[in-house]
């Protein structure tokens, strides 16, 4: 009785599993998961899928749009079960490398070689051992978003270009009674971005590239990065309670504080205007008062002041997907689709032909900086994978709390890396 019920239950569970199977099992149906869950993005992707179906008779695209967090959760479950959608998003770095090692992702190097060539250096974050496994469709860089009006109030005319100038800006803002910066250190990664940048400015490109592959952080410059960060922390620039402030949720989050004019600046990625729009009643965020400047130069640092920290999203094809999926991904990166993507402000296009289609002035400026950058360093936590990245972020958050030294960050990262080898 118990057995038969158990069997029955498993059988139903299995049946249910098959019904909702992500990859459909059909050679002519492509399942595509994306996170553009709001208009105009959602409608635009519906249209793109229809256009693709019209051009490829017999192929059917099943578009599944969902909120970002839902997609991340469902993808994680899909990776565990091995039952992946045909076309899905990869963030690159260590995470992708793990998926590749587990044999879940299709190598696109040969099949999509023309598109890869067109995208140029931007695909490097999605390469493992020289092979390309996903094609980035949006790539942004992190920088300071600021409130131009509050800057004016404090008598600041020029955004800072060096750390010294940033400290002056912080002093002026404080003198005018304005909290200079918000940071969502409760979520850890927003705090970690500061260290990533001070490392990027303190270490040469060759040192960084070497560290990402060898996981060796013994170079002096990584400790210097922490020391620069401590200098910044000594100016006490952050919103009260920043150690538990979340990154993006609600008016008291780091983004919320910038959007509601409680602070003057926040270090964040290209998503920030969109997030702020969602956090304000009129849906405009800071509107016309939105300004952006790149992370300042660290005096005496080995790093290139024009190098940027960034990351993005890429379309990947799962191993078991029908061949037409590769065509869909290539179509998604075509001039035409990327231009529409840019016009709808869905992200920062990677196809050079679509660059001019970005209409938002702050985003256009960011794009200019991105394209002028000698190289773009993928967020360290993404590059190293969740385990090492998480240990690194934890240690950096402790530096923010005054409970860890610059050496501790290096030690914690090396220790976590040791366990991966």
């Amino acid at each position, binding site marked *: 009785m118990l057995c038969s019920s158990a069997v029955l239950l498993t059988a139903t569970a299995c049946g249910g599993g098959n019904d909702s199977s992500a990859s459909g099992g059909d050679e002519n149906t492509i399942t595509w998961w994306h996170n553009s869950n709001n208009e105009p993005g959602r409608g635009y992707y519906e249209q793109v899928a229809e256009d693709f179906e019209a051009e490829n008779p017999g192929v059917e695209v099943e578009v599944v749009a969902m909120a970002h967090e839902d997609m991340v959760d469902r993808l994680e479950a899909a990776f565990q079960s091995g039952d992946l959608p045909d076309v899905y998003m990869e963030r690159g770095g260590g995470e992708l490398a*793990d998926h590749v090692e587990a044999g879940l992702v299709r190598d696109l190097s040969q099949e999509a070689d023309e598109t890869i060539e067109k995208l140029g250096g931007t695909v490097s974050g999605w390469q493992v051992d020289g092979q390309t496994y996903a094609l980035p469709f949006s790539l942004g860089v992190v920088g300071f978003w600021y409130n131009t009006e509050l800057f004016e109030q404090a008598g600041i005319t020029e955004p800072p270009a060096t750390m010294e100038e940033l400290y002056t800006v912080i002093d002026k803002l404080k003198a005018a009674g304005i909290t200079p910066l918000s940071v969502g250190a409760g979520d850890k990664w927003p705090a970690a971005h500061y260290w990533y940048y001070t490392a990027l400015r303190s270490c040469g490109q060759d040192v960084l590239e070497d560290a990402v592959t060898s996981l060796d952080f013994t170079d002096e410059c990584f400790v210097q990065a922490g020391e620069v960060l401590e200098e910044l922390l000594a100016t006490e620039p952050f919103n009260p309670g920043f150690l538990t402030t979340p990154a993006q949720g609600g008016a008291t989050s780091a983004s919320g504080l910038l959007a509601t004019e409680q602070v003057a600046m926040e270090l964040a990625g290209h998503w920030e205007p969109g997030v702020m729009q969602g956090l304000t009643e009129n849906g405009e965020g800071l509107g016309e008062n939105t300004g952006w400047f790149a992370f300042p130069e660290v005096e005496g640092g080995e790093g290139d002041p024009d190098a940027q920290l960034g990351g993005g999203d890429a379309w990947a094809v799962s191993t078991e997907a029908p061949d037409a999926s590769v065509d869909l991904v290539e179509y998604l990166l075509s001039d035409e689709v990327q231009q529409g993507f840019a016009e709808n402000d869905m992200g920062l296009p990677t196809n050079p032909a679509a660059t001019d289609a970005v209409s938002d002035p702050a985003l256009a400026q960011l794009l200019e900086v991105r394209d002028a950058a000698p190289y773009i360093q993928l967020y360290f936590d993404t590059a190293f994978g969740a385990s090492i990245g998480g240990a690194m972020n934890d240690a950096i958050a402790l530096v923010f709390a005054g409970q860890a030294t610059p050496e501790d960050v290096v030690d914690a990262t090396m220790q976590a890396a040791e366990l991966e080898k």
Partner: protein
Amino acid sequence: MTRVTAAPAATDPGAAVTRGADARRVTGRRRGGKRRQRLEILLFVTPALVLMATFVIYPVFSAARMSFYRWKGFGPMVDFVGLENYLRVLADDVFTDAVMHNFVIVFASILVQLPLGLALALLLNRRIRGRGLLRTIIFVPYVLAEVIAGVVWFQLLQPRTGVLERMLSSVGIPVPEQGFLGTPDLALATVFVVLTWKYLGLAVLLFLAGLQGVPDELHEAAQLDGASWWQVQRRIAIPLIAPTIRTWIFLSMIGSLQLFDMVWILTGGGPANATTTMATYLISMGTQRSNYGIAGAASVVLFLIGFAMAVAYQFLVLRRDTRADA
């Protein structure tokens, strides 16, 4: 005639046979009844057992299995590492601190919520005006979903913008620069205050229910003998609800060991790991960092601590109550 006379004689053994058959049928029925009873038990217990096996026993075993492997959450589980994950967990300061935080909450709950809950229950057991309303007010926080209560308190406790800070500073009580949740030394205490607000209602409710069961005659008799109200409570009411108190301590202990939701919402385990619990450690190691082996080992440790405490408490404290029942 002979037939007729013989008839009763014939009926007798017949009757005996019938009786025997009856008796057999009765025992048969009894045996059938037993089988039926077993079937019934099986029928009623099976769904619960299947659910238990699927959602409790299987996950426990799967976590235990995971704890012996290095596994990132996908692909085959092949990298057997023996007890390495356990060594890593036990050597991790964040985890040992988390265990300590759990025990701080366990003991603080008993030391603070027990006297407070008992005092309120004794008070609300008296005939005072607005008793029903007061009882409701004290019980309402317990009814609120933990997540909602957490979000409300999170907003109240915000530095600068939070209501609580303005209230406190307007009566001259100094507030910490980084807020109550943002200051590592105060965060755990703050979480405990919120937990007390949330769970005091349950203690009061249980104790009140216990007090209702104390017969009025005992009160009257004691009063006739000249006992004061305090003496009645101390010598009669509290000893009589001791089994209820012991049960509450058990529930509170297990709840404190499993503490997750409130911490996750108020602080996420921060600032600077000042409020991590074993459960938040599991989440950050497992789903956030994809170190499922380590999370598995930590969950086994949590399970063993909880299990050991539950068994010890049953054996040392609750046994008295169950024996009294029998």
